[in-house]
Every structure is written in structure tokens, then in C-alpha cells.
């Protein structure tokens, strides 16, 4: 029997590479009659929508935002105490500057030691990286009526730059204490806002409150989440059961339920004089909720550390506790950064839920200003809600981009 040689079909006719936009359009958009029809119909719709958007953008009455900008940003913070939020803002810009500069210097030193070239981030790259934030600041400043906020913002940028260079030139011995500088600045920001006759978080509102609830929520929840994650892996059945029960109950309940429980159940259980303020109860509820989610994120990170790492640490004689602290956790937590940022982004958006309990955070503020007598019945919800949406989008989008950048840099998922 003879085996016929396989007959190969001729290579399919080469798809000619499209030359120019006209060619591309003919191939992809107008290659037959119904596609052409669809293309035309969609084109008309897109042009109409764009025009409507532009018209809306330019004809809208932004006075409502202009008049209420302070409410959106800092809620009912007393008007004669405005220096306080500004002082806090300066604390944070300096914080970001110093930490950024010190991290950059650390990367530079490590690269030098390992004999690798270090590419320094340029100012232009930073602006491009943070263009949504830059844009948002410009938009917000365009709603201000005096020149002071603009000047103060420029001052804050200068302060951030100065802090960045300070962070870069700090001697190594001091740089190890950057985290302490950060803590001091955070405390300073809080004292500036609340100390010496200021307003504590119980009275905060607007975007300031959203940011506070999100940052304080995730930071305080983190150690609890870590403990829960470790508890879930504990060899002791009691601890394991408690951890698993807590995590699964909280994760099975919507955040709004936990917030309502915080508002009413905690309020009901604790006598009136000892009862924490509503915002504090919200914060407690958020921490309780986030701890369970962080526990699951950390668990994923712990599982990502190969068993061989623990064995190698044991083999050189490290105790279980040191193995966890020096070998497992550093690797596990690094692997959780992207998921942790995702968790933070969703919390940042979810802080708007406290509006349900009548707390004037940003979303609630953009809603209630429509019942001010000057704007009542004018249907400006679209304008104010768009503003809130823009603020949340800029924050979330920037964080998600930064997290992806960090992910690439740390090589997470490449190992």
C-alpha cells in the first residue's frame, strides 16, 4: 500500500495590508451593504451624542457647583476655620513628596548596589502619569471665585516638590525613618483639623469625609484582616473556627447592612452617654466589613508563597514566628498589593453609602444642594452628580493605574 503524500493546499491569498485610513475603512466598515448602513447609522448617532455632550458641557449652569464647592469639598466645616483643611492638605502634599522622594532614592541606591542603571522619573512623566488628578484640580479651581485657592494650590505643589527633593537627599540613616515622618505628618494633619477648637471627624463632610473613611477604614482594618487571615490558617481549631465564621458571615452581607447595623444596633446596645457619634459608628462598621475582605485578600497572598520557602526557612533554623515575619509575610503582602488597591478603590466609592444615614459626604452634598431655594426644580441633578462622578472616577482611575504600574514593577504574577 502506498501512502499518498499529503497535499498541502496553496497558502491562502495574502491579506493585503491596509494602506491608509480610506483603505482600512473600506475593508472594515464598508465591506458590504449592511455593514455600510450600520456604519452610517452609528456615525450619525455618535456625532449627535458628542454634539449633545459638548452643548451640555458649555451651556450648563455651573453656578450651583461654584456656590457649593466648599460644601462638596469639606461639608459643613466652619467657614472661618478654612485654614485648617488647607493646613491638612499641606501636610499630605508634603507627606506624598517626602515618601515619593525617599522611595525614589531607595530605588536609586538599590540599583547602584546591584550595578544596574537607574532611570529617574522625570517631572514630565509624573504629570503625564497623574493627568486625571491634574485635570481635576484645574476643574475644581475653575469653580472657585477668589484667587486664594489657586495660590494655595500652587503653594502646595511647590511644597510637594520641595519635599520630594528633600526625600531624595535625606541621608540613608534618616531615610529609614521616613515612615515615622509620615505618621507625624498624618497626626499633624489631624491636629490641624481637629485640635485646638477645630472640628473632629464627627463633624466632617464632603469629599474630606469620603477620603477619611476610606483611608482610615482600610488602614485600621488591615491589621485585623491580617490577624483573621492568619487565624484562618491556625492549627488551633477554636481560632480557626472563629476566624472562618467571622469572615464568611461578614462577606455574606452587603456593606449597607453592616452600616445600618452600625448605626442602629451599636446605638441601641450602648448607653446614650457612651455612644460614639454616628460617623464613628460608620467607621467602626466599615472597619469590621473591610477586615473580612482584607483577610481573604491576604489569604490569597499567603497561598501564593511556595511551601519550599517555609521549608528553607525552617531548615536554616528560623522559628515559626520569624519564618512568618521575615519570609512568608513580606512575599505574601507584596503579592496582595494589586488586590488590596482594588479593595481600596471599591471602599472609596462605597463610602458614599453613608449618605443613606444622612451624613453629608460628597454624593449626599451634590444631591441636597438641588433643594436649595435658588436651584429648586431647575433639574441640575445631572450637573452636580456629574461633578461627584468626575471626582470619584479620577480618584479610582488614578489608583488603579498606579496599582498596575506597581504590579509590573514588583513583577507580581511573573514568578
Amino acid at each position: 500500500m502506498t501512502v499518498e503524500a499529503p497535499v498541502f493546499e496553496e497558502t491562502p491569498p495574502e491579506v493585503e495590508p491596509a494602506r491608509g485610513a480610506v483603505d482600512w475603512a473600506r475593508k472594515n466598515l464598508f465591506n458590504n451593504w449592511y455593514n455600510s448602513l450600520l456604519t452610517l447609522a452609528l456615525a450619525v448617532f455618535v456625532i449627535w451624542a458628542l454634539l449633545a455632550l459638548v452643548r451640555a458641557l458649555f451651556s450648563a449652569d455651573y453656578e450651583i457647583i461654584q456656590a457649593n464647592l466648599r460644601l462638596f469639598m469639606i461639608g459643613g466645616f466652619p467657614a472661618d476655620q478654612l485654614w485648617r483643611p488647607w493646613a491638612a492638605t499641606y501636610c499630605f502634599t508634603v507627606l506624598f513628596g517626602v515618601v515619593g522622594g525617599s522611595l525614589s532614592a531607595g530605588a536609586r541606591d538599590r540599583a547602584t548596589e546591584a550595578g544596574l542603571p537607574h532611570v529617574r522619573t522625570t517631572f514630565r512623566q509624573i504629570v503625564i502619569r497623574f493627568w486625571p488628578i491634574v485635570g481635576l484640580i484645574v476643574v475644581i479651581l475653575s469653580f472657585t471665585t477668589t484667587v486664594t485657592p489657586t495660590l494655595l494650590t500652587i503653594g502646595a505643589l511647590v511644597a510637594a516638590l520641595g519635599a520630594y527633593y528633600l526625600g531624595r537627599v535625606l541621608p540613608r540613616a534618616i531615610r529609614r525613618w521616613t515612615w515615622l515622618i509620615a505618621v507625624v505628618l498624618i497626626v499633624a494633619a489631624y491636629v490641624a483639623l481637629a485640635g485646638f477648637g477645630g472640628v473632629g471627624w464627627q463633624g466632617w463632610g464632603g469629599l474630606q469625609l469620603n477620603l477619611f473613611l476610606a483611608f482610615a477604614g482600610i488602614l485600621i482594618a488591615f491589621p485585623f484582616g491580617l490577624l483573621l487571615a492568619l487565624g484562618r490558617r491556625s492549627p488551633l481549631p477554636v481560632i480557626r473556627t472563629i476566624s472562618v465564621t467571622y469572615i464568611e458571615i461578614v462577606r455574606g452581607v452587603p456593606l449597607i447592612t453592616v452600616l445600618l447595623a452600625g448605626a442602629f444596633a451599636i446605638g441601641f446596645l450602648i448607653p446614650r452617654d457612651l455612644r460614639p457619634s454616628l460617623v464613628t459608628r460608620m467607621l467602626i462598621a466599615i472597619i469590621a466589613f473591610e477586615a473580612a475582605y482584607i483577610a481573604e485578600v491576604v489569604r490569597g497572598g499567603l497561598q501564593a508563597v511556595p511551601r519550599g520557602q517555609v521549608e528553607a526557612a525552617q531548615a536554616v533554623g528560623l522559628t515559626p514566628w520569624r519564618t512568618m515575619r521575615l519570609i512568608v509575610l513580606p512575599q505574601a503582602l507584596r503579592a496582595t498589593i494589586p488586590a488590596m488597591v482594588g479593595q481600596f478603590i471599591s471602599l472609596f466609592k462605597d463610602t458614599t453609602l453613608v449618605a443613606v444615614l444622612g451624613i453629608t459626604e460628597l454624593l449626599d452634598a451634590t444631591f441636597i444642594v438641588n433643594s436649595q431655594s435658588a436651584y429648586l426644580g431647575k433639574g441640575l441633578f445631572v450637573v452636580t452628580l456629574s461633578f461627584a462622578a468626575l471626582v470619584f472616577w479620577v480618584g479610582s482611575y488614578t489608583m488603579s493605574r498606579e496599582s498596575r504600574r506597581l504590579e509590573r514593577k514588583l513583577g507580581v504574577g511573573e514568578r
Partner: protein
Amino acid sequence: MTATMDYSDATRATGEAIIELEGVDKFFGDFQALKDINMRIGQQEVVVVIGPSGGGKSTLIRCINRLEKHDAGRVMVDGIELSDDLRNIQEVRRETGMVFQQFNLFPHLTVLDNVTLAPRQVRKLPKRDAEELAMQMLKRVKIPEQARKYPGQLSGGQQQRVAIARALAMQPKVMLFDEPTSALDPEMIKEVLDVMVELAHGGMTMIVVTHEMGFARAVANRVVFMADGEIVEVGTPEHFFADPQEERTKLFLSQIL
């Protein structure tokens, strides 16, 4: 591989026993991984353990530093009997270094930090002394110039040599090697074996699970053949390779040689 190597000095006096196993059993569920293992390893002795995969070679040496807990029998290392007592376990681990097939270097630490970690944390050496010691060990494995790099920047052979330096930095009395060259590209095997041969010539007590018969021929005082959780045959390399007694040994050798 054997042709390129010249490891002639294989005869060394074996001193007092440093590792003793008596009637050791180990189960994974219903599966018996070790069946009544009896073994006595002298100081400065080099024992090479060979055998088909799944035969219990790795389990055997992992019982010696308690990465696996034996279910019956006694394991003694330098006069310390391994039990559930955590202090005994820590003490034994301080005296035994281990090198793994997959290197298991700590990827978040530099080479230098990988090597200094245990001396600083376990033996409480000051940083400076630990780094000096680490550099000595890195010189011994011939990569002192890589000290500031991260494991991920090194080749497999280099990583395994760092792993050897990391184990040596604890100045152990015994070194355990669990298939140290099995995960390496062929061209990197020699650089690791060379380091191990030097270590053997330097008088280190070593138990080596490997498929490198050239290494076994050259430096082993004894070759142990394991299959199905049992020690099937033990002998000096000359006798073991030239004149195996057991059927299973003959079959195995005919398959790999």
C-alpha cells in the same frame, strides 16, 4: 558527565556516628514511605542515596532535619534525639544544612541577605560579623561578586551555589542535599557538583540524594540504594557499581547507566 570529572579521592576514614536512624517508619496517609530504616552515618562520611523516584530518598533526608516527622523509630543527630520538643528540633536544624532541588532562595532578599539571615536571626551574630562570614561562604562557592543581586537575577547554577552558601553560613556539622542538580540545565550541573566535591574533600559530612553517578563514584564513601521505602543495598561505590547483589539494584543500574 562523568568523563569530564576527576574526583579521585574517595577514601576517607569514617569517624564516630553523627547520624543514627533506628527502625524509622514514615506514613503519608495509608502509603508507607519509609519502612524500618536503619542507618548509621559517621563523621566526615559522604553517603550518596540513589534509587527510583517515589522510593523514599527525599523523605529519608527530610526526616533527618524534621521537615517530615517520622512515625516510628528513632532519629539521632549529633547525640540529639528528634522528638516533638521544639528546642531539640531547632538545635538539630542549627547543625544540619539543607540544599533543595528548587533552590528555595528567598526572592525578596539579596544574595547577601539570604546568606546572613540565619546567622543573624538564629545565631545572633552582629550584622558585620554575619556579612563577613557570608562573604567567606560566597567565596567558597565562587560567587562573591553577586552578593548585592537578587536571586532572580542569577542563573540556576548560581542560585544553587548561593543556596549552598546559605546552608554553610550556619556552619553545620551535616549537609543534606535533596537532588541539588535535578532542576539545573546540563551546562550548570558541573559548577554545582564542583562545589560539592570541594566540600566533601574539606571533610564535611554529607548525605546526597542525586542521580549523578559520576559524583557518587568519585566522592561517596558509601552508596545507598533505596526503593519502595526500603534500603535495598549499601556498598562502597566500587563494589556497588561493579558488583551489585540485589535484583532491584541491577535492574535500576541497567536502566540508568
